[in-house]
């Protein structure tokens, strides 16, 4: 122990085979270069290209990139009723799905945490919806929702309950997509919350029990405050993922009936790859990215602050 402590810092950071002439700074740059190249090629260059396209006329079927049109595409997209409708659908979906997933996921996590047997099996079962892609499970759910041959309506019929047209009734189609998403992603919230619960120190809870604190008080003053960073992270992750809603819509409803379930990304896809108006599609993508960046910065600010405080303390 004393020997390892006595090794100079420079030697612990630098491999023996490394050239003696390379500074720490250059070595760090060398290490991050592959990741930076990947980000540059697969994220920044396409982003720059999309930005360029968003300021030009670009109807793919009429040839390659056209003339510079200034802010025309932004003006058109921002005045596009269908675009704002898709934004509304996305927000409605995100709020509903994330709230339900958080509430159910946390509740399930508490139930599993309190269980005395079968925790391993339940955890394994909960991974199943996450382990399959939305495209596959979406197909599976499309058959479940089928009004003629679907299992859900079959059982509702046996119970003499109304048999809704899950994907064809415009008043409930979006809720059917929400239900599917909740089924797929609640286990994710539950598993993360469960891991957070199991990592909590026992001492404060034992002290609270000795003091005769009620369950509600323990939850309010100990459990939730201590779980807050974990839950907040899950909330941010689920929100970002929900805003990107595409697969479930593509498989279950194709945006229908009409445009009832047409999310922003699905509308972007339709504009870009059905109408081949890459200019409008790129403009929407830039707008989408900007909105996500701003929202993420606000949402992640407390977490980033917490991490930087911990780092400085360390």
């Amino acid at each position, binding site marked *: 122990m004393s020997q390892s402590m006595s090794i100079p810092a420079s030697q612990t950071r630098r491999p023996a085979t490394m050239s003696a002439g390379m500074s720490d700074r250059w070595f760090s740059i060398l290490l991050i270069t592959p990741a930076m190249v990947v980000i540059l090629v697969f994220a920044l260059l396409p982003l720059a290209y999309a930005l360029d396209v968003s300021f030009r006329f670009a109807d*793919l*079927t*009429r*040839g*390659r990139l056209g003339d510079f049109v200034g802010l025309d595409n932004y003006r058109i997209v921002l005045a596009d009723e269908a675009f704002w409708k898709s934004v509304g659908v996305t927000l409605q979906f995100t709020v509903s799905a994330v709230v339900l997933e958080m509430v159910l996921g946390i509740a399930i996590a508490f139930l599993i945490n309190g269980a005395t047997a079968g925790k391993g099996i339940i955890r394994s079962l909960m991974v199943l919806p996450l382990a399959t892609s939305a495209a596959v499970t979406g197909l599976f759910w499309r058959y479940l929702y*089928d*009004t*003629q*041959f679907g299992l859900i309506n079959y059982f509702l019929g046996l119970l003499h309950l109304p048999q809704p*047209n899950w*994907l*064809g*009734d*415009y008043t409930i189609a979006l809720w059917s997509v929400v239900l599917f998403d909740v089924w797929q992603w609640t286990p994710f919230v539950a598993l993360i919350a469960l891991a957070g619960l199991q990592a909590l120190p026992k001492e404060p809870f034992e002290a609270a029990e000795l003091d005769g604190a009620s369950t509600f008080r323990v939850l309010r003053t100990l459990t939730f405050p201590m779980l807050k960073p974990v839950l907040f992270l899950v909330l941010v992750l689920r929100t970002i993922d929900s805003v990107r809603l595409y697969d479930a819509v593509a498989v279950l*409803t*194709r*945006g*229908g*009936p*009409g*445009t*009832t379930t047409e999310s922003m990304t699905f509308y972007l896809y*339709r504009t870009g*790859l*059905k*109408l*081949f108006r890459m200019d409008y599609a790129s403009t929407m993508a830039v707008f989408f990215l900007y909105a996500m960046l701003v929202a993420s910065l606000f949402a992640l600010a407390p977490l980033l602050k917490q991490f930087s405080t911990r780092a400085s303390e360390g």
Partner: protein
Amino acid sequence: MKQILIAGAVASTALVATVGAASAQACNDADRVPITWSTIAGFYTDAMAKLVSGFEAKNCVKVNVVNIDNSQLYNKQVIEMVGQTGAYDVVTLETSEKAEFAENGFILPMTDYFADKKAQLDDVAPTLAALTTQYKGDVWGLPYYTYTAGYIYRADLFDDPTEQAAFKAKYGYDLAVPTTWAQHRDIAEFFTRKKGDKLKGEELTKDFYGVGLMAGPFPEIQDEMSGVLWSQGADWLTDDGKVPVDAVEKAMDDYLKLVKFAPPAALTVTYDGVMNQMKDGQIAQTYSFFLDQWPNAVTTEQSVPGARMGVAEAPEKKAYIGGFLLAVSASSTHPKEAMDFVAYIGGHDAQMEFAKAGGTSTLMSVLSDPQFATPESRAKTGHFATLLKIFDDMKGFRSNLFDTPFGAKIYNTMQIPLQAAAAGQITARQAAEQLASDVEKICGGPCPIGK
């Protein structure tokens, strides 16, 4: 003398066949010219593989078939055409895509190629040829498959004396294959019954519906509405390149009147869903429906006891005319071989084989071949005679939707307002107005029409 001539002809044919076989045998795999055909997955894939083998046996060409899901075929083909990648030598186009591909230089005209093959070109059903192959005076390929629409119904219900009497008592005229859309609506209403009601004198164990509709979020909703719109003397686009709002509203209104006589699943399905409803004994008739589905529809006779299927022209003798066009990519590195392939697949011999496999041919000589009119071949080709009548009745018909270079984009958009109205989200008027607005946006004003 006659015998000598016949003997001569036979000998020449044998010689040509021998030389052809020899040349094919002499062709090494390494020498074969590779061409790639992008086509629709699941549409007689096995039959197509057999036809491809037939072409390869006669030509020193290797055909790679790329099967693509129908919903993605247009996107993928456009991307490859714009990029001029040469990935596909032969492309498969929906009727509304022809003008766009031709106008933008994505495909090569085949007018010169067919200059000395006029007989082959003339064999394509003229109505189909006009809509699928011609644009601005040029020929752009050959259709190899038609999904022209007609009317498919449960003939056993129409022939039942109890049902006939009840229908006559209610509507004052005989129950028969409808010749007007008003009669079609009456029939749809008449056969819509609840579980426990009687059908052909027997108690129903589940709800029964008067009509199957393709009102799901797919382009087929506009296909089935096309015949109705066309029978009004209107079109999706006027000669000025605008959507006739009043005519579309009327067609949409007529459609909405039918929705209540269709299974609730109508709002989520396309043609395969309607066929499942038919085979499950849920519906009495279709609307304007793809006749290529006849071999599928006729299996209802096995799945529903006592069922007998019938096929006829759609009411008012106007129906959607559609076909998959085979065309040669402008970026093909082997256009000659690609054109030979198009001519082969769309030619008589291949189309005969295709028809025997249950495919719906595009050639008059095949559709009218007596061997396909026999009772034995009814299950596969029982719709051929009806198709001939449809082509005859619609002779000279053209739709502006298929003659505008924006046809494909309009086609990919129009389902949205139409389906929204079918689902009750908006009114027929709003759907027609939204369609007009969307189309104007797509074309950047009135759509150009190039016949």
